[in-house]
């Protein structure tokens, strides 16, 4: 969703720098804070996302829980994930997490994307897909440490949460934030959100959640969607939120050293051939070889004919 009003600082499959002359936004860019401890699982955010982005997913099937749809899709960019967890005291904890793009500072999708400008990162931290440049290869799916992007079966383009980049560009908060009835979703500068989270965490700790904390994983250099978790020491309780998300070393190898090294290896092979020809020269057959061949042929005919 290309928007001229947002500065692009990083662009997929681009080896030179994007325009950098303007100052980075104050406050560390924008961030969405998802306070799982305040979430009641009402799905208003899901509906607001559908409405604002004009998305209507196919009607799925009931899988025996509140989670609906069952998974993220090209038409469902955010989703409440419901985890029923039995805590050590034997009580049930219903851990509800709003899943969607985390808008990593070091985005694996952008690193993996082979199409110039199909994935961009704005100066405010939003990672956005420009579907008109998307070729549908699915490399972003491979690159993402959070399993977020989905390739549409309809148009073979990749889709995910835009953090309502179109709304943010004109000074509005994302649609999901607007719809949240409990204040579990808040939006502002990243610094403000961290500060707000710190207050929430202090409150949670005072009420017995000693492991309450902020999920802003350093493995991807922080995210522009953060969680307040009651059990920050066990993020996997929240429907497999990764403990230490980072771009996979395999993807780093593939999209890192392999690229220049591969090109160099191919160029070296071709150059080695060229300079071999220049230094050693071709291997030619001359009249002597033809004469020797003729003599050998005559000899092989021999005096006696084989049957």
């Amino acid at each position: 969703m290309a928007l001229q009003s947002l500065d692009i600082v990083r662009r997929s499959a681009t080896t030179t720098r994007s325009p950098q002359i303007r100052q980075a936004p104050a406050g560390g860019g924008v961030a969405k804070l998802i306070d799982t401890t305040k979430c009641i699982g009402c799905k208003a955010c899901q509906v607001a996302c559908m409405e604002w982005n004009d998305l209507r997913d196919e009607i799925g099937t009931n899988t025996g829980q509140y989670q609906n749809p069952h998974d993220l899709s090209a038409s469902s960019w955010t989703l409440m994930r419901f985890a029923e967890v039995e805590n050590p005291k034997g009580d049930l904890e219903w851990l509800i997490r709003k899943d969607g793009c985390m808008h990593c500072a070091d985005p694996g999708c952008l690193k993996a994307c082979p199409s110039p400008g199909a994935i961009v990162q704005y100066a405010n931290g939003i990672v956005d897909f420009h579907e008109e440049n998307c070729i549908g290869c699915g490399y972003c799916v491979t690159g993402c440490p959070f399993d977020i992007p989905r390739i549409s079966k309809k148009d073979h383009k990749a889709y995910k949460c835009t953090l309502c980049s179109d709304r943010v560009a004109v000074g509005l908060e994302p649609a999901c934030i607007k719809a949240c009835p409990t204040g579990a979703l808040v939006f502002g500068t990243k610094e403000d959100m961290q500060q707000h989270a710190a207050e929430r965490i202090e409150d949670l700790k005072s009420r017995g959640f000693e492991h309450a904390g902020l999920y802003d994983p350093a493995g991807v250099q922080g995210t522009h969607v953060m969680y307040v978790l009651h059990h920050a020491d066990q993020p996997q309780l929240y429907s497999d939120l990764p403990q230490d998300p980072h771009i996979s070393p395999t993807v780093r190898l593939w999209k890192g050293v392999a690229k220049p090294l591969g090109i160099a290896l191919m160029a070296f092979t071709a150059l080695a051939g060229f300079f071999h020809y220049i230094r050693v020269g071709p291997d030619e057959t001359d009249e002597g070889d033809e004469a020797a061949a003729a003599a050998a042929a005559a000899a092989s005919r021999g005096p006696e004919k084989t049957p």
Partner: protein
Amino acid sequence: MSAPQFNEGDRGAAAAAPRRALIVRYNASERTNHWLVVIAFMLAALSGLALFHPALFFLSNLLGGGPWTRILHPYLGLTMFLLFLFLASRVARDNRMQPQDWQWLRQYRDVIENREGRLPEVGRYNAGQKLVFYAVVGCLTLLLLTGLVIWRVYSSGYFSVGLMRLASVLHAIAALVLICTIIVHIYAAIWVKGSVRAMTRGTVTPGWAWKHHRAWFREIMSHATNPRSRPD
């Protein structure tokens, strides 16, 4: 070069050139097969390189843009694999490594410096060509298997993301090895004069066969006395 060195009756497997008896190395069907593989390889390699490095993304225009490159690349790869299966089945028997091949490889310096006289006699294929054959067989197999894992439209849904990551990097490495192998293959044809015509016209001169593939030459000659016994 014009003096006739074979008389008409001696050609055996040779083509019907009046001035010089030539030896048939590849028949029309083998040549067609080879060049179909070449076309599929070129298109698959160039479209693959377009997705490998941003500096080469312009190559995607060759197939009509990024999405078309993504759509066509797997089919081109599959086509190349199937066409190569036919070609490989035709040449596999002559590519089995023999004891003298290892000696040939140990003397790689003589190979590179054009000192062929010092090398053991070579059959239809030399050890270098055999290595090219095995490299292509290995790379294409790996490319096919890893390609299926990352073929988004049809098959990648059956595999975990970890496997897809591994397949992506292995696909790139196999393609890299294959492309370098083919560069060597192409250069060898330019280097060893008289080789290209084997794959374009189908024939080589007896002197070429004598110099580069002497054991094969002797075999041809022994069959030439009994023309119908040539295997192909």
